[in-house]
């Protein structure tokens, strides 16, 4: 266990090596929240209404805050390095050590997520000081617990999707194009840009089939109290099913990939 704590500690320290890079990245996260908030505010001003797309303004602002939080908790990841390690042959360093590669990357992700959450706290605090937005506070403890569980499952789900994508490095050194496409699609279909239920029902029902919907939008809906307990239970089962499927795929693809791995570049 202590070796994985060391991985966590080293990843944490590495994040502060390029300080300007780090500051710019945090500033960009803040700008994203800032501009999205003002877009929606402008829409409410233009309609002169307290409710739009069945979202009251407090719930919509809370949605945006939760997207920022879930972005830090779910989407922060270092697994992007996996394909590069495979292509450069650096994976050999890992597989020859008494370390599980998947746990290694999970610990790296955990350090990255913790860093994101801490700094997001400062950013959201600053945002509150500037704009004092009205928020919706969930008072039902059961929903908060289900929300926490959904977020935990979303973290594992996103990690597996990312890891699977990284394993493409065994077959191609052009993983970045596939990753760019995946990140673009995930950003939209996870509900990071807008609540997915504002789309036409036929489109929304297709999006629900995909795993991205369960990363950000589903936990968000639990917290906002917009889905029933039945739907929460169904959603958690679907998240778990996706995790089982992806875990099986990761195991199979990893095994196939290791048979092909030739440590090129070493």
């Amino acid at each position: 266990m202590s070796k994985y704590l060391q991985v966590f500690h080293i990843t944490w320290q590495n994040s502060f090596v390029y300080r300007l890079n780090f500051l710019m990245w945090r500033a960009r996260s803040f700008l994203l929240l800032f501009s999205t908030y003002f877009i929606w505010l402008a829409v409410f001003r233009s309609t002169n209404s307290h409710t739009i797309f069945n979202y009251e303004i407090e719930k919509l602002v809370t949605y945006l805050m939760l997207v920022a939080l879930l972005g830090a908790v779910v989407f922060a990841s270092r697994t992007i390095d996996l394909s590069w390690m495979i292509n450069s042959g650096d994976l050999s360093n890992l597989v020859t050590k008494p370390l599980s590669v998947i746990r290694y990357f999970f610990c790296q992700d955990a350090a990255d997520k913790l860093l994101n959450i801490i700094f997001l706290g400062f950013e959201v605090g600053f945002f509150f000081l500037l704009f004092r937005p009205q928020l919706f506070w969930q008072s039902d403890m059961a929903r908060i617990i289900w929300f926490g569980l959904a977020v935990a499952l979303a973290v594992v789900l996103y990690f597996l999707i990312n890891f699977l994508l990284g394993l493409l490095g065994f077959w191609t050194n052009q993983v970045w194009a596939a990753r760019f496409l995946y990140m673009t699609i995930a950003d939209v279909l996870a509900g990071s840009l807008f609540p997915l239920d504002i789309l036409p029902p036929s489109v929304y029902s297709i999006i629900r089939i995909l795993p991205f919907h369960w990363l950000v939008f589903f936990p968000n809906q639990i917290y906002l109290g917009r889905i029933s307990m039945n739907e929460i239970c169904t959603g958690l089962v679907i998240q778990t099913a996706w995790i089982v499927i992806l875990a099986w795929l990761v195991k199979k693809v990893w095994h196939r990939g290791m048979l092909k791995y030739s440590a090129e570049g070493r």
Partner: protein
Amino acid sequence: MQFIRYKYLKIWAKFAHASFQESILLNPFSSFLFIVGKLIRFGSFFIFLLVLIGKTATFLSFTREQVVVFYLIYNLVDVAAQAFFRGVYWFRGMIVSGIFDHFLLKPIHPLFNVLTRYTDFMDVATLIPLVIYTVVYIIDHRLAPHGQEAFAALILLGGSMVIAFCFHVLSMAVGVITTEVDSIIWMFRNLTQMARLPIDIYTAPVRLILTFILPVGVMITFPAKALFGLLAPVWIVVSVLISGAMLLITLSVWRKALEKYTSASS
């Protein structure tokens, strides 16, 4: 002077030819995935915009068609800057490896050499239909009341490219001193995203910053407003002056940064 202009055009054509070969002939599938990703990114926000403005007759005193044109002009400027100034993403590698020394010795301006070295044909492939669609949309919806408005918008779009050039050069100047380039450029991209919709959505202090200090409003909102005949002539003059002032400041900063260049290794 004509010889110099012809020389630079010839050099750019050679760079573009090499970039084209690399992106289309060596990595056709990756190029295809990148183009699909860019189209999805454009399309997803466009759909979001149409859904949003579908709820309102006007958006902050702009018609729906005008809001669409704001977004199209944002894309024109963003994609054109990415297509023609793409070389900045390789600048950090040139600095840390010392290859930039050779750029300084060549009889070509180093800024031109670095920025235009990698013309992104995937962006060019999306730029051409975007320009056509924008022009057809404006003509179809009769959004430019007179030819002089269109002329003013074109002048300001020229200024937009100058400002985009300045931001790229500033990131290079910071890169010479700190070796961190990518974070600054991504910050620029996030800042321009703030002008996807008219900067009138922000509060007055933010609008001031986005006009006079980080002039992304001048880059994107002003050309669109000029096109609709909503920009007073004095603001057209102010925009040109801002572009010119930014160019002078940027070139001065670049010269100062070069004085600090120490050539890490060559």
